[in-house]
């Protein structure tokens, strides 16, 4: 091909345009042609990943965004009682029950709400904040409201319907939770309360979530550590045995993977319970007395044992794939240079296996921190995780706002720990093989 100089005395051939641009076979400028074909390749690549991208967007990003939104969303109060919220704006809870116009506005709002049968929903929502709101709103139904005499003051008639409507509390709760967005759920998730007087700590005997978060982290760390202690020698053995026995061992590591999670957890119940296999053996050989059987299940011990077992493969596999790449000759070289077994391992082998430890630990820790079936089944009261409370608020109490706030905090926590890990160990130092 001709040299592309801008020199005018080289006659333009068929591969050049009049201005000296390179042309493709079809006569379009080469640059444009290349750009077009690159764009086509990019489009093709994009189309190939598009299904995955759409899947991740729909099934992962969107739900998380929705969850984050739910944890602050509080439109139900202002939507159901728009006039009341406005009328309560000027009212100060310190001055006693609200004035008559508030009751008028409330009457109009409730008349519409009861017709649409959405007043009980609001009652359930406000009952999360103050016990008794649920039945108060259910009682204030269409039938009762229609009997009101609008020419008389409404306040006594509401008090007549239920004396609580004459108190300050229900109105204060409505006023406090009137804004369309609230930090109330997040405060609750951190054992605090949003009250008319501002934010305050929940009473000591009601604090639960901070303890659970702390316990979740602590137990997850313990589980990660015990997975590492148990998994490291196994991975070392796997990577150093001859292929045949290594394969057999590998099957033993993978076997639990092929068994249902529930079966594995229930098996631990049979093994660990007080009248279980392990205790029976210990009593039989006389290590513990019949009255002093060990309590190993329905507590933290049960959670740690069962979850270590379940998550062990997630530690062994990354460790194994990293150790497989460490040439055995390094260890031999170290020893031939006079290192003891321990020094050779600690100074030569171990540092090279650190990326595997990092990958395994992150994998196990992140799986453990969100686990919920196993702690629920074997955790008793002191071996349950924050995820068990999240599940409770999703499926039983229906307090999705609080569940979302707890979930968001858990997400923030994990991201925070990830950042910390990156700062201390470095995320580049993680290898899956």
């Amino acid at each position, binding site marked *: 091909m001709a040299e592309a100089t801008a020199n005018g005395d080289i006659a333009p051939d068929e591969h050049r345009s009049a201005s000296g641009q390179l042309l493709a076979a079809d006569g379009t400028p080469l640059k444009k042609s290349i750009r077009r074909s690159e764009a086509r390749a990019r489009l093709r690549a994009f189309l190939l990943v598009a299904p995955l991208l759409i899947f991740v967007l729909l099934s992962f990003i969107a739900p998380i965004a929705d969850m984050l939104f739910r944890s602050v969303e509080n439109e139900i109060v202002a939507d159901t009682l728009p006039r009341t919220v406005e009328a309560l704006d000027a009212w100060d809870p310190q001055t006693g029950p609200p004035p008559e116009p508030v009751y008028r506005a409330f009457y109009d709002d409730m008349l519409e709400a009861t017709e649409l*049968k*959405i007043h*009980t*929903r609001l*009652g*359930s929502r406000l*009952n*999360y904040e103050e*016990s*008794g*709101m*649920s*039945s108060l709103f*259910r009682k204030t139904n269409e039938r009762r409201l229609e009997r009101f005499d609008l020419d008389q003051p409404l306040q006594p008639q509401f008090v007549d319907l239920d004396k609580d409507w004459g108190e300050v509390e229900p109105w204060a709760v409505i006023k406090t939770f009137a804004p369309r967005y609230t930090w109330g759920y997040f405060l609750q998730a951190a054992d605090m309360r949003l009250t008319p007087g501002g934010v305050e700590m929940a009473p000591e*005997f*009601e*604090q*639960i979530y901070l*303890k*659970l978060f702390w316990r979740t982290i602590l137990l997850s760390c313990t589980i990660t550590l015990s997975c590492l202690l148990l998994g490291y020698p196994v991975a070392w053995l796997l990577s150093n045995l001859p292929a045949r026995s290594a394969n057999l061992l590998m099957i033993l590591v993978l076997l639990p993977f092929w068994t249902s999670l529930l079966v594995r957890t229930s098996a631990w119940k049979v093994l660990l*319970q*007080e*009248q*279980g296999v392990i205790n029976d053996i210990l009593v039989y050989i006389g290590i513990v007395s019949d009255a002093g059987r060990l309590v190993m299940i*329905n507590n933290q011990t049960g959670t740690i044992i069962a979850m270590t077992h379940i998550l062990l493969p997630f530690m062994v596999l990354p460790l194994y794939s990293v150790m497989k790449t460490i040439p055995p000759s390094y260890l031999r070289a170290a020893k031939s240079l006079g290192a003891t077994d321990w020094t050779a391992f600690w100074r030569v082998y171990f540092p090279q296996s650190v990326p595997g430890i990092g990958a395994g630990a992150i994998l196990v820790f992140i799986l453990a921190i969100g686990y919920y079936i196993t702690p*629920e089944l074997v955790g*008793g*009261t*002191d071996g349950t995780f924050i995820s068990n*409370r999240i599940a409770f608020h*999703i*499926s*039983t*109490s*229906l*307090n999705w706002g609080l569940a979302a706030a707890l979930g968001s905090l858990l997400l923030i926590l994990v991201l925070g720990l990830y950042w910390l890990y990156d700062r201390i160990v470095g995320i580049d130092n993680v290898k899956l093989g």
Partner: protein
Amino acid sequence: MSLKLKMMMAGAGIAGAAVAGAAYAADELPACEGCADSMTVVSWGGAYQNSQQKAYSEPYAEMTGVEFVWDESSNEAVAKLRAMAEAGNITWDLVDVVASDAMRLCDEGLAEEIDFDSALAEAPDGTVATEDFGEMIVSDCFVPQIAYSTTFGYRTDVAEWNGETPDDICDVFDLEAFPGKRALEKRPINNMEWALLCSGVAKEDIYDTLETEEGQAQAFAKLDEIKDSVVWWSAGAETPQLLADGEIVMGSTYNGRLFALIEEQKQPVAMMWDAQVYDLDGWIVPAGLPEDRKARVMHFLKFATDTQRLADQAKYISYGPARQSSAPLVGQHAELGIDMAPHMPTNPENATNTFLYNYEWWADYRDDLDAKFQAWLLR
């Protein structure tokens, strides 16, 4: 030979007629105009769902040819229905839930309100449904099927008890006379009431007491006495399993589970009916179903909650039918051949001291007390 065959056929004919007499005669079932020809029913699975299939859906399917799809999701029905309603795609036609969940669904506007007298069948003597169900109707959206109770089972072979057996709810709190582990449900409902009852509060004052901080503290103090000896359960199947394994000496669970443990599996376990708490289980129809599916559900519902059908269900499980008119029709267990009446929680001998789950009160205080209860468990 042929005579014998004829006689057998005649016999079968008579038996068939008897069955048809007990059930709806096929032509008695009114036709269903513009109805969907399949329906998705949600229940609890296990022996309970089986009893519903035997008593309700199989006879109905035989008469109408409707195809039933069963979904065993009742324990998370409230959350799932809410999610379905938000997504605008309700795939369930009829959902079996406990009364407290039904009230919640009704409050949330997720369940259809039902006009009992027009939608449900009359009793054979012409009593309208609202009267026949009586006080079992606890919500506008909820058609009760059965009354069950949460009560205690205990092992009959505990040597340390010196031949004594617990017959009083307070024996659960008595670790000296009845040492050993107990199983209680991991939630405040029932446990708080029992604790107050055994710390000297009169039955009629229990909920007033429980509304106050002092009353709650009193209940927790009573539970503290046995806290170290309690295994907390969250699924109804746990207590029977723990009793069978000898892990616990007594525990609360649903009476039908204990019936199966005692009568079907012949375990050395007996029932303690004192202070049993009645609860109701029944149907709700999700709000906003398309016309044809709703018509089919209402048609089935009328059939499945009539006097005979509710009595039939008691052949398969020891739960009491919710209609008064069904009680005299309760017969023997379909396979074991034992009389079911003495095993019903409503049997007068069992029902000397009972509670009815206070739905209204718990709807108000559940969120608050549950948080306190969980915090207490963590202590």
